[in-house]
């Protein structure tokens, strides 16, 4: 019934799924770029993967603009409109952090000393896992399926773990023999890396609230 009134909503639904798929690709390329950088240093492949990450991040921006345009042209009821817009605003911080990290490494020609390699890799792995869980959680919310709270607690656990790694790394960096400039560069990089799981956790909490809010 009233199907003819909901063309925009169907278009919007498909755009949001496109956005999430694109976020997944951005994250995949970020991970590949980081692996390349940590294993082989700043090389041609790393540059290519940064460009690929940027391409998907820009694509995400385009999709977001289309989503906003549809929202402003009266798709969805106002409450859902506000919820989805706020959620996307929160989610899009994550690909920006990916880009920030990659550009930081490229422009500052940062080298991660071997002594910190394990923790950095672990920090990246857990942060990216949090993002994957977050995307899964948003998908569950959109599909009104169970399991949102379980994912919230998994993301929260990851965030605590990342905080722990981040703090440990900071101590290690400032206890090391590196020069102060390098220490501060690494500090900035580690903070940015830690921000990924923090942001995934923020989004996850928001998703949980939105789910609770939807119940009458």
């Amino acid at each position, binding site marked *: 019934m*009233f199907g003819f009134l*909901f063309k925009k*909503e169907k278009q919007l639904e498909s755009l949001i799924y496109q956005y999430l798929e694109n976020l997944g690709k951005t994250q995949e390329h970020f991970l590949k770029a980081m692996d390349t950088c940590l294993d082989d240093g700043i090389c041609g492949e790393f540059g290519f993967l940064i460009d690929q990450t940027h391409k998907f991040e820009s694509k995400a921006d385009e999709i977001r603009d289309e989503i906003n345009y549809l929202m402003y042209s009266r798709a969805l009821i106002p*409450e*859902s409109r506000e919820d989805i817009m706020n959620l996307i605003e929160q989610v899009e911080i994550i690909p920006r952090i990916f880009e920030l990290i990659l550009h930081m490494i490229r422009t500052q020609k940062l080298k991660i000393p071997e002594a910190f390699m394990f923790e950095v890799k672990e920090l990246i792995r857990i942060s990216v896992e949090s993002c994957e869980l977050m995307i899964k959680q948003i998908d569950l919310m959109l599909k*009104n399926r169970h399991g949102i709270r379980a994912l919230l607690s998994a993301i929260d656990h990851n965030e605590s773990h990342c905080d722990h790694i981040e703090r440990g790394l900071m101590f290690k960096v400032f206890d090391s023999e590196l020069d102060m400039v390098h220490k501060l560069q690494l500090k900035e990089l580690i903070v940015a890396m830690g921000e990924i799981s923090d942001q995934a956790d923020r989004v996850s909490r928001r998703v949980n609230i939105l789910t609770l809010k939807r119940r*009458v």
Partner: protein
Amino acid sequence: MLPLLGGVFLGWSLGANDAANCFGSAVASRMVKFRLAAGLCALFVVIGALAEGRAGIETLKDLTPVNLEQAVVITVAAALTVSILTILGLPASTSQAAVGAILGIGFFNQEINLAGLGKVVACWFGTPIGAVLAALALYRSLGAIYNRLPITLFQSDMLLRSGLIAAGSYASYTLGANNVANATAVFVGAGTLSVFAAALIGGLSIALGVLTYSRGVMETVGRKLVRLDPFSALVVVLAGGVTVHFYTLLGVPVSTSQAVIGAVLGIGIIKGAQTIKRATLYGILSGWFLTPPIACFIAICLHFAIHLKYIPH
């Protein structure tokens, strides 16, 4: 045709003011375009008036016997009352204004159907209370079903929007069925119109008001309802419609605004929140008590004025 203008004007102002109770939340929140809402509202008002307007017309025409001149006085007095109270910023019920004006003429005729009047007044008290109860029952029952529906966020959104359109159309139907009597019942009593003609002219007058002048009121009243979440807004419109429909079946014209206010209060009870400000409530109550005596007074004055005769010395 000229004597009917008072009734047409009353019907027009009723449509312009009360369409907001049916589609206000949907239009103000940009969920439904005004043109679609106004079109649906006008259509269902006319259908409602023709299908179920008879009972209300029979009740009002039997309150007191009137002639054509008195019928004109009644409709003009009711229209003036609603206009004055609206200018004063007090919510006025067209049903109460019409009955108040009929009473004024009834005093002149010294013939009032007290049993009919008692039924009408009892229903006025029952309207907000009935709407509170309807909102409580609908919120609980529909809420339980809604929470169990295996639908996505987008399907839920579409369901709520469709529900608001369907509920708005139903509320429009009950608006036409219940309130058409206010506009043209007295002309049936005066023998000028048949019941069918009264329902048709009254329904069309209300529809004209909806189509030509309801946008502003929809935006203003709607914004107050939009503060409720979409599900509550749907329940409010539906509970208002169910309540007004109940009184339509009893043959008593009641206020759709008061039904909606009752439903909003019902939602407030469920959520444990104050959905209507105390000052607004006082305004509603004063409008509620003032409308019938003011309409009665204006009808008496008008009737008295048109019977003044110049007697030269």
